């Protein structure tokens, strides 16, 4: 094994082959591996053994924050800091400013969702060993690939290469990590 290696990249012919290969790799007990496709492949999450995305937690946090911030803002402005008497109506109620609280809720929830997607994906990350490989860049076009990293405890240069070939990979090659 070379210390400059990042992993093995196996290319598959179709989404179907990729999903079947992913199931086998999951069952073989690999941990540090990933599928690269230019579009989300249905059923791949299950094939890779991924649980449901946690983005929803960020959305919920954002949404609740937005609603509370909106409520406190209106209460502070129209009932506390400068009580504003409009036709003798109550200074604060949950009803009259509801549209504002609601919009704040959605605004913060949307920021939470986008931020959550970035945090969970560990993005932005502009440098990655895979970007140095010209063939990998085709993954955003039409290449369907699986990369098993060298740091995986089950990784073995010869054995894993053979394993990937047996799974129906059309091409298996080593990806360098030059950094």
């Amino acid at each position: 094994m070379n210390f400059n290696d990042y992993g093995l990249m196996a290319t598959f012919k179709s989404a179907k082959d990729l999903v079947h290969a992913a199931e086998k790799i999951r069952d073989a007990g690999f941990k540090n591996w990933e599928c690269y496709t230019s579009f989300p492949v249905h059923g791949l999450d299950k094939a890779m053994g991924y649980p449901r995305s946690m983005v929803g937690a960020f959305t919920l946090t954002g949404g609740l924050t937005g609603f509370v911030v909106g409520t406190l803002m209106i209460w502070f402005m129209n009932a506390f800091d400068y009580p504003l008497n409009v036709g003798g109506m109550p200074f604060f109620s949950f009803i009259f400013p509801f549209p504002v609280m609601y919009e704040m809720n959605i605004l913060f929830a949307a920021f939470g969702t986008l931020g959550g997607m970035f945090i969970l994906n560990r993005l932005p990350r502009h440098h990655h060993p895979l970007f140095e490989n010209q063939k990998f860049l085709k993954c955003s076009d039409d290449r369907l690939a699986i990369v098993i990293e060298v740091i995986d405890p089950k990784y073995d240069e010869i054995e894993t290469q053979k394993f990937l070939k047996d799974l129906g990979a059309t091409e298996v090659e080593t990806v360098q990590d030059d950094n």
Partner: protein
Amino acid sequence: MSATTSEVDKPDPAIMAKVQPAHLEPRPLVENNRDYAWITDKICRIVEEKTPTWWWACFAVACMTASFTVMGLIYLVATGVGVWGLANPVNWGWAIVNFVFWIGIGHAGTLISAILCLLKQKWRTSINRAAEAMTVFAVVCAAIFPVFHVGRIWFAWFLFPLPNSNWLWPQFRSPLEWDVFAVSTYGTVSVLFWYMGMIPDLATIRDRATTKFRKLFYGLFAMGWRNANNHWRNFEGAYLLLAGLSTPLVLSVHTIVSFDFAVAQLPGWHTTIFPPYFVAGAIFSGFGMVLTLMLPLRSIYRLHDLINQQHIDNMCKITLATGTIVGYAYSMEFFIAWYGSNPYEGFAFINRAFGQYWWAYLTMISCNVISPQLFWFKAVRENPAVVWIISIFVNVGMWFERFVIACTSLANDFMPSSWGYYSPTIIDILTYFGTFGVFSVLFLLFIRFLPIMPMAEIKMVLPESDPHHGDEHH
């Protein structure tokens, strides 16, 4: 799809033998069996090729048109709001009409990207990105009017939750203040949704980039997207959640816009039908605009395989459905005005149709209710030129709808002694005319520099992307 058909959906085989249903192949969403590489190349090429001559010509015309808005606004700020035709009793003229018109246009973009996504309408994929761009640019055009109608725009920050010079805060009981939050949230969330959907496509352009600038520019905005399945998992989760958030948002925005009118006591405005009626109208006008934009785009870039007859058919049918809902709302308003027995309300509606603005009402009815009815005919839907002309009628009609609502009610309210007649000034007209230039400038920049279709989503609806592709139907 065979993969999603559950046991319950399956008909009894005994009945099937008797009925002998015809086997209809669903029309493919991408025609001519295009593969992944073709889609990537088709969409990226638009960004990568040399700027076409027609683009420069259109861009020059758009810039010149936009200059009318710029000059109109400079003149307004330098002189005062009096340069617009607003005067007692019509203090809400073209400014509010144009605002509601543009905000309404935006709604189809969110409908396509969010509501049709939740409804799993796969045909939306190819028109989704351009429609979202339309939303963002329409909100920009809409925002010009409320900001500048205050005249002294250096006080426009009074709209925001900041203490003014007398340490007073905004008043949250007013629908106008709700509108500030609704429209700014709508604009922001639309940009977020649009941008997030674009990240994988920006990464594709980055990976194909041959020039340093392109690598830097698209690379920066792609945020290091690697197309990993883990990325897609969170992306899809986030996309679905944003769609779920945008759906109530888009409905709330036009509802709140309609509150600007409906909360007032004025006959013709003070009606509970306004929120659903405004939302239907907004989607109607937005689809009109989507057709107006997508049909020329499809011809110029030869996108017929991606936007095929099925897409146009569906858009025409939605236009027809929403146009009919709008027509129903017009008649229901009349019915309620009569049924409610309020003489002022009754007068407001008779006056709308037969009063001094009868020509606006007639334009509205013929463009919004009558012209989309032609979409019942297949021959009409299959003729892009005719569809395009009807889409223009829809745009015109919806502008007149807002004019009819805003101006007729104000011009003839409770007391005949305070009646008036509103006419726009040349500044009004040119400022509004210029916003089409502003919109076109932004849209042209979009089609030149950004991926006009979501490549990843289109690839996803190809039959070979289904992991069960080629399996026996079970």
